[in-house]
Every structure is written in structure tokens, then in C-alpha cells.
């Protein structure tokens, strides 16, 4: 590996407890993340993809300690986030920011843009009021919002503009790393492209690193350099973007790629159907989580959890029968 990673996640696990059943609720455990490890390099966009419920958002939140993980560690520039005390954590959070999916519920409707964006500056005691005003104006300009946005409230903006506000809020403290959790999924195609281009532009001009969580393979292919595929709480494959898309070796990655519709009738997806549905993380299948839907499943897949290993330089996989 070239440079020291900006973010390193080691064997992260998260178990949620919940009650199920009526009239006698039983406590059940949901293994949302089951031993996830990866590292993000400085200046890189690292894509995390998977279907709903696979735990990708939980990974994102655990990296910021918005949800404390059950076990495992997260390092930011070599310093442990999971072990950090309140004061250290506060400092670290200036450098790591998050953008959420839904620009309607993630902005406080009662805060004006000016207050919303200057609040982090005040909380972290970064600068005085006059300078804060200046920085808010600069950031609004950077994300492509008009200057008169300053005194407005969130309801005066469209979905795309709200997402720009969310980006501005993430940028205001000059972070080094941004966790973007499905930042464009709630937006229309034409607006989606605007936001993606803006993020790409900001990434270059501000030298940002991204953990980019998405279910849309097209967007990940465009935005990210490396990608990890998750299934039911575990990583199944990780590698550089062109490699993974051109030559996926895990049967799930292959299925995911082949079922993503492409806007080209000549390349009609073959309806290569993956039978069945994603099982519940409350009662995941034994061995390899993917085995009930896998076309290559054998006895060993039902019994043993496949090991996470480097199959080629830069390529990691957890599968007993990789292609």
C-alpha cells in the first residue's frame, strides 16, 4: 500500500437488540455488521455498495461513532476513534463529516441557512462571527447556491438545493473525510448528475476523501476508485473499480452487476435472475451468507464461513469458489 490510510476499519461488528413477537415479545439479536475490515486511502473515494439491509449505512455511522460499534476498531489517521474520549472525538468530528440521504429530514426546518451553517463553526470555536459569515458565504458559493440563500430556510429550497445545503454543512469545517450515505438517491436523474459533478469537483479542489455509500452501481463506477460489496453484514468482494466491474469474481457481485439495468436496449440485461430474496439478518444462513441464492453453492458453503483473503493484488474476496 502506498500511503498510510486516512481511515481504517478493523473487524467492525454491530449487534442490534430488538423485541419481536406478540403477545410475548422475545429479545432478538440482529447482526447488522459482522466483521467488516477495509481501509480508505487519502484522496480516495471508497464505494460501499449493497442492497437494502446489508449494513452499509450502519458501517458509515459506526465510522463516525454516531452508533457505537459492538466490537472492532476504527482508526482515523492512525488514531483510534472507537477508543477516543469525548474531547478527542469532538476534534475528530471536525475532520470527518457526513452527508445523509434524505435532504428533507436531515435539515432542521427551523434553522436558517446562516444559522445552520455557522453552528458547527461556533460549536467547535473555529472562528469569530465576522469570519463565520464570510466562511458561510464562501461555502454557499462553493456548492453552487446563490448568495441570497443566506437568510432563507430549508423549505424555500428544492430537493437538489437542499442536498447542496447538506453538502455545505459537511464542508464548512474543512473536513478531510466525508461519509456520504446515498447522497443522491432521493434526487431526480438530472439533479443527481448536478450533485455528483459538484462532489467530484469539490473532491479535487479540496483534496477530500470519501466513503461513498450507494446502491447505484452506475454512480459508484463514476465516482469511486475502489469499491467494496456488502451482503448481509459482511464484505464479499473488494477491489479497484474497473476490475470489479469488468471482472467480478464473487457470484453476488456478478449477479448485482448483471441485474442492474443499463440505459441501452442493445445490452438488455439477460434477466439472469438471482433466485430468492435477501434473508433476514435476525436469522442469517449458516456458512456463507449468500449460499441459499448462490448458483455455485456446495457443501462447504453451507458449513464454513469463507475466509476474507487477497486473491490477486488489491483484490479481496470471501468466497469458497471464486471465478
Amino acid at each position, binding site marked *: 500500500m502506498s500511503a498510510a490510510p486516512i481511515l481504517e476499519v478493523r473487524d467492525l461488528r454491530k449487534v442490534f437488540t430488538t423485541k419481536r413477537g406478540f403477545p410475548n415479545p422475545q429479545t432478538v439479536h440482529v447482526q447488522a455488521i459482522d466483521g467488516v475490515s477495509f481501509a480508505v486511502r487519502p484522496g480516495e473515494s471508497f464505494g460501499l455498495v449493497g442492497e437494502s439491509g446489508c449494513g452499509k449505512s450502519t458501517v458509515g455511522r459506526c465510522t463516525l461513532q454516531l452508533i457505537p460499534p459492538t466490537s472492532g476498531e476504527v482508526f482515523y489517521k492512525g488514531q483510534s476513534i472507537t477508543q477516543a474520549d469525548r474531547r478527542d472525538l469532538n476534534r475528530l468530528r471536525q475532520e470527518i463529516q457526513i452527508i445523509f440521504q434524505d435532504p428533507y429530514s436531515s435539515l432542521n426546518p427551523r434553522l436558517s441557512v446562516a444559522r445552520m451553517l455557522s453552528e458547527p463553526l461556533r460549536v467547535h470555536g473555529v472562528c469569530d462571527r465576522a469570519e463565520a459569515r464570510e466562511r458561510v458565504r464562501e461555502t454557499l458559493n462553493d456548492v453552487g447556491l446563490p448568495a441570497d440563500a443566506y437568510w432563507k430556510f430549508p423549505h424555500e429550497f428544492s430537493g437538489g438545493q437542499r442536498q447542496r445545503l447538506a453538502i455545505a454543512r459537511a464542508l464548512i469545517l474543512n473536513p478531510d473525510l466525508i461519509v456520504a450515505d446515498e447522497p443522491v438517491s432521493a434526487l431526480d*436523474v438530472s439533479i443527481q448528475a448536478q450533485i455528483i459533478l459538484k462532489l467530484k469537483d469539490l473532491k479535487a479542489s479540496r483534496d477530500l476523501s470519501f466513503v461513498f455509500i450507494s446502491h447505484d452501481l452506475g454512480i459508484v463506477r463514476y465516482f469511486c476508485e475502489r469499491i467494496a460489496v456488502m451482503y448481509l453484514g459482511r464484505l464479499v468482494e473488494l477491489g479497484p473499480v474497473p476490475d470489479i466491474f469488468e471482472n467480478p469474481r464473487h457470484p453476488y457481485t456478478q449477479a448485482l452487476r448483471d441485474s442492474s439495468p443499463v440505459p441501452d436496449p442493445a445490452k438488455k440485461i439477460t434477466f439472469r435472475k438471482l433466485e430468492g430474496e435477501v434473508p433476514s439478518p435476525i436469522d442469517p444462513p449458516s456458512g456463507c451468507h449468500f449460499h441459499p441464492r448462490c448458483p455455485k453453492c456446495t457443501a462447504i458453503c453451507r458449513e464454513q464461513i469463507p475466509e476474507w483473503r487477497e486473491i490477486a493484488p488489491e483484490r479481496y474476496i470471501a468466497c469458497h469458489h471464486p471465478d
Partner: protein
Amino acid sequence: MAQPIISIRNLTTAFKLRSGWFPAVRDVSLDVERNETLCLVGESGCGKSITAMSAMGLMRTVKGCRVTGEVWFEDLDLTKLDEHAMRTIRGNRLAMIFQEPMTSLNPVLPIGQQVGEPLMFHRGMTRHEADEEAVRLLELVKIPDARRRLNQYPHQFSGGMRQRVMIAMALACGPDVLFADEPTTALDVTIQSQVLALLDEIREEHAFALVLITHDMGVVATIADRVAVMYGGEIVELAKTSVLFKSPRHPYTEALLKAIPRSDQDTKDLCAIEGQVPPIYDMPPACRFAPRCELREEICVEEHPDLRTRRGGKTHLTRCHVRNRVSRRSAA
């Protein structure tokens, strides 16, 4: 061209806002043939769902909403029918699937009753007969263990399975036209591909007309025979799927296709469409796409363009002054 099974003529659906009536759908005309899949595609608020709901006669009871135009189904103009007559057709000869399988199923009724209801209502079946038929329908949409699941409730089904139940309900009376409003938007891609494959297969087998509403150009490419692209309440382009993707003529369609990053190849330059869709109370009077259009000329902000073919063409319609004119010159 074969006789269309449903023919929408100059459909306009307007809503009453404080400052007057504003059309959410304006002058939409569409013919759909039996055994054909037509996709209505566009961004949110472009009027694609309202078009389908108006055709189904679901907007007529909505307060502050006015539907004009004609919807011909066989020899009937559906807009002239009273609600009683419409009820004998809706859910019977015309059926609809909605986007949210979570909210469109009744949570307190077992699946079997919900699938069987149209059969009892339209076909006069008994409970027992309807149950038997419901099992057959659930098997048709590939729900495993159908007989046992008949007595289960919607919350016991996953998202994909619920959407299959919706399809089974819609198919119950063997409809001639099926409107599917974003049927796979709430689903994951692997499940989406299963449901699309199922719809395609059943459409082939039962030879009805499928009108699929979606915002996803990938879904369009996968399943459609013809595509109608909507923008600001109007159809801006109508063409065969292969033609539309190969040589889009309307600047909006073209821009839309360039704004999608693809998963099957590297996207060199992604192009966003600047600006946003104007709200219905503030639509440009002439070409509705003009303010965002790169080809905009004077005529585009002065005169409303017609949806028409180029000279010599028959099936590829575009609503654009510039593109339709350029072609005439090059053809001459």
C-alpha cells in the same frame, strides 16, 4: 398499425391552485396496442402518474381537479362513463399496480381475500371459488407455497413478494390494459430484475397492453417496446425503444441519457441538466424545456411546439422547434 386497445386523446388534467387552474398533464395523446409494453418516463412531477390515474378515471372524484379529453377503450369513451359503469371496467378490464406495495395493500385483510375480491365483485364468484382462483394467481406470479400464504397478512410478505401479490390482484380478471406505476422503484436491483422478468413473461403470455411508468431509463431499456418521454406535463418525445436510445431527438431526452452514469462502461463526461423543472404554476408558456435547453432559439420562447414527426417519418414524434426544423432542411 394494429387497432389500439386503449387510445388516449388530448388528455388534460388541471389542478386548481390559489391563482387559477394549472395543467399537470397537458394534451397527452397515446395509443397502446395489445401485447405491447409502453413506458412513460420522466422525472418527478412530470405528470406520468397523473396521466395513468386520469386514464383509469381515478382523478374525477378528486376535488380541485379537472380532467378533459377522451380515453377510448374499445367503443367506449371512459371519460363519459359514470362512476357506476366505470367500476365495472376498472379492476376488471383495466388494472393498475402502484408503487408502494406497503401502502396499497390492506394491512388487516389476509392476502387471499384481497386477491379474490375483484373475482367476487366482477365475476360473481363465491368465496371458495375465489380462493381457488387466488391460489392459481399467486402461483402464476411465482409465490412459493401459495395455498398456505393465502391466509397470511401483508406484513408477513417481503417487499418483492408484496409487489407480486399486487400483480396477482391486477391480473385476477384478465385485464386488457395494465398500468404499472413505478412497480419496482421500491425494490432492490436483484428483486427488481425478478419482478420485471415476471411482468414481461406474463404480458407475453396473456397478451395485454402494459403501460409502465418509471423514472429509470435502465428499466425502460430492459422492458419497453415504445417509450413516451414526459416533461412538464407534456409528451416531448415518442418513439420505439431502440430508436429513442440510439438517436434521441428531443434535447431533453438527449440530456437525460447523458446524465446517467453507467455501470457497464466508463462514463467519460457526465452532463448535468442545469436548473430544475419549473413548478406547474410557473411553466414557460412556449416550449416548457426552453429555459434549460442548450439549443434554445427565439421561437422556443415564443411559440409552443407541436408533437410531430419529421417529414417522411411515422413513428418517431418530437416536440421541438429546432430539431424538427433541422431535419426538414437536411431532408430537402
